[in-house]
């Protein structure tokens, strides 16, 4: 029983015929070709597959593609403005918050939702917001620093 779905992904409209058991994660990676979104644990714990749906974070590994029909999805590929990296992406590079990089897409999408809701978070608030995103390389210190630095830069850009 295939379903027809239409949705926005990173501002572009996509339509497709999919099986009901197609996960949003697999739809993004295999149907649309956006492989930035990663599958880590596959059971909603590690956060690598996190994407934004209509302004709310979701686990794409525990979301059916049919459930996002008509909605607007933002993945890591939608963060940069052309060649210009998003401040979060740039600060992750500058602070060495990326080692193997597998967790970075989920972390950056998650941090972006935090900063949209709270442009001036404390370190504790950043840690709480990222508690569902596991990084097995960095020990988190540089990731937290990068998010705080990006928040600071985004605040000063907003005031210009």
């Amino acid at each position: 029983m295939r379903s027809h779905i239409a949705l926005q992904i990173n501002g572009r409209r996509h339509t497709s015929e999919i099986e009901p058991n197609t996960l949003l994660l697999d739809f993004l990676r295999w149907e649309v070709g956006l492989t930035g979104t990663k599958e880590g644990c596959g059971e909603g714990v590690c956060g690598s597959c996190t994407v934004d749906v209509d302004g709310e974070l979701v686990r794409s590994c525990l979301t059916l593609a049919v459930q996002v029909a008509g909605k607007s999805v933002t993945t890591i590929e939608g963060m940069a403005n052309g060649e210009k990296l998003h401040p979060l992406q740039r600060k992750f590079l500058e602070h060495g918050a990326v080692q193997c990089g597998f967790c970075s897409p989920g972390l950056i999408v998650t941090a972006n939702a935090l900063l949209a809701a709270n442009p001036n978070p404390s370190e504790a608030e950043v840690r709480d917001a990222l508690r569902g995103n596991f990084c097995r390389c960095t020990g988190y210190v540089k990731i937290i620093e990068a998010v705080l630095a990006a928040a600071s830069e985004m605040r000063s850009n907003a005031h210009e």
Partner: protein
Amino acid sequence: MALPVFDYLAPKSIEEACAALQSKPDTSKLIAGGQSVLRVMKFRIMAPELLVDVKAIPGLRYVEEEPDVLRIGATATQTDVLRSEIVRTEFPLLFEAISRIATTAVRNTATIVGNICVGHTASDPSAALLALDAILVVVGTTGERVVPISEFFVGHMTTSLDATELVREIRIPRRKGNLGMAYLAHAGRAAMETPLVAAGAILSVRDGVCTGATIALAGADETPIRVGRAEEALVGTRIDDRTILQASSIAAEDCSPDTDVYASGEYRRRLVAVYVRDALRTAASRVQ
């Protein structure tokens, strides 16, 4: 990790949902957020032929206060409940229980109703709602019935819901008077853990004397439970460290926690004493 094959239906009304469940009572499964069901389907613990997704039914996503009751609709997400001002100010126990579930990305999709319908003993909302004497409005093909949450959990991953029924609404009575409440959970690490044990406590106090005590536990028995004998031990006493420790030991005696790969039953029992003590202390410090 791929999902097994299934048919998917997103009904537009409760009647349509119940009819779909009745068409395949043994092989259909209801989902709201799907955060528990899809996960266990990946492990092939469950392989329903039909998933009935209630998220698209209009009019079920609400957290509404009335003079005597707080009402939470079937598709209200855990995030919706956390955003409710009345939950934060009047039901801190519920707020604390929900804010420790997983993380924002999961809570944005997961519902409170879905969580309790899984019937897991270590469910934070289940223990919190048990402490708050919540009432569930259950709908089936033959009509509606009202189930006190104390009669909802019947065994390991089992509730009193029939295969063709759904929980339409949770009603939480609003409380008056001098009271304090708290919810504390023990997880191996801070993030993304189901608690080993958790305790919710509510204390009512008048003129320094306890007039009402509630203690609910998660992870301490086959289902979430209340520990009546520990509650009774507090009523009529002055709440101090002696009475709190007494109630904590009774709670530890009266529960029957399971042993699994995460902890032994004996360890969980010791945790019950610690978490009941701390939840009671916190609740007592918040009495106003």
